[in-house]
């Protein structure tokens, strides 16, 4: 469903993402890990068509992100690190606007809005102005925005940041539900979240893929914390070790 091949992104002399390849299948949640500045956000921005790669290809749902960017964008829901909210709009007006620009047919906009409002627990704040919402609600509106056009691929950049423990549990179960018929890429710094949710783990460090494997293979004889620390210390050595063992 998502196929990233030899992806490289350069900003001038700085190589943010270097020859990165991985893939994710429908029904799968891919945990995308790495220290800050490792290239997670850049990779996600390329997958969602926000910025182009210097070289390499990404295919989403069979469409090339560069040549058929429009088709890809129709099928992708993206929650950036900072939820893209218009501070002066109400939750309802904002979600209706997003539904419109994401191509939801006019007659279905209200229904789609009510569905994501319900799913993300926004019923009580639907008439409130986005600028006045708490961090947790803003994050949930961001998630609602990513879901509104019923995309087959979800790219979530730290979706549970700023939420209280109960909201985190709600959002996690929502993501798990959503992943049944979708491909989900989830970037996070919370390792237990990955253990609970993801079937597959990709760890990226300084632009390189350090680990790519299924969760059960990685955590067979070490905790995910150990795997993560080894991966970012060893510059890809962990990967060969894992492969050898």
């Amino acid at each position, binding site marked *: 469903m998502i196929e990233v091949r030899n992806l490289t992104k350069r900003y001038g002399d700085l190589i943010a993402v270097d020859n990165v390849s991985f893939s994710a299948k429908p029904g799968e949640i891919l945990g995308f890990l790495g220290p800050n500045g490792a290239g997670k956000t850049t990779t996600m921005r390329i997958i969602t068509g*926000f910025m182009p790669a210097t070289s390499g290809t990404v295919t989403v749902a069979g469409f090339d992100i560069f040549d058929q960017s429009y088709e890809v964008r129709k099928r992708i829901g993206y929650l950036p690190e900072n939820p*893209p909210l218009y501070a002066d709009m109400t939750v309802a007006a904002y979600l209706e606007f997003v539904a*419109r620009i994401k191509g939801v047919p006019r007659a279905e906009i209200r229904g789609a809005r009510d569905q994501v409002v319900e799913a993300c627990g926004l019923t009580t704040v639907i008439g409130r102005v986005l600028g006045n919402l708490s961090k947790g609600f803003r994050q949930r509106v961001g998630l609602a925005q990513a879901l509104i056009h019923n995309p087959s691929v979800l790219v979530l950049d730290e979706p549970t940041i700023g939420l209280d423990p109960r909201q985190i549990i709600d959002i996690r179960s929502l993501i798990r539900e959503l992943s049944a018929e979708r491909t989900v890429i989830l970037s996070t710094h919370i390792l237990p979240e990955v253990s609970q949710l993801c079937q597959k783990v990709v760890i990226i460090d300084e632009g390189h893929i350090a680990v790519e494997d299924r969760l059960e293979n990685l955590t067979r004889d070490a905790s995910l914390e150990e795997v993560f620390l080894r991966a970012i210390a060893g510059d890809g050595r962990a990967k060969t070790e894992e492969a050898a063992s």
Partner: protein
Amino acid sequence: MRNALAIAAKDIRSYFVSPIAYVVMTGFLLLGGWFFFNLLARFNFLLQMYTSFRNPQAMEQLNLNELVISPLLHNLSVVLVILIPVITMRSFAEEKRAGTYELLMTAPLSVTEIVLGKFLGAFVFIFLMLLLTAVYPIILLVYGNPEIGVLLGGFLGLLLLATAFVSVGLLTSSLTQNQIIAAVSCLVILLLLYVISWPAETAGETMGAVLKYLSLTEHFSEMVKGVIDTRDVAYFITVIVLALFLTQRSVESLRWR
């Protein structure tokens, strides 16, 4: 087109829920009212003076269009040079700063739809603003007899001028994520286009003609006189289309840079 309208509607709303729309429109009408009052007072003074001199020839020369409308439009055009950069500075720069640019650019929208939507939003705003200034010619029409054709030509010129300003404002806003940089660079470009014909008299024949052609004021003055020449209309349309085209390129550059 549906998408462009959605973006335009969102932008218009955002102008009117923030104080920007009210501050800009109030300022524009306040200054316009002050110009109009003073021009009318001067007209009235001249009228009374010539009446007391019993000078029918000079009375014939007194013309509402030349003495009130034309200077009013020129003054308003200068106010627009300052106000329009403030209106358009947000359009792209604010989206980039707030992170909503990621939403627009990852939604299934074409860059042309985004630019067109932004343009329509700002255009509707200035159209409403200029519509409010119609109160001045209406007062003249009720109490005097200005030439309606000249009046319409002048206001059409002002609308074209303002639309060209908006397009330049969108271009500068698309180049930065800082609203102040967007506004100041737009202001500088507009002022330059305003005064570019100053050396025209001394610059030699060809150069002079070129500078005059580039000048916004020269084309605007013709329209204010009531002369609707296709050359002037074509000039404004060229500026609008060129600025929007460059905006489209500048926004799209994110996709291939």
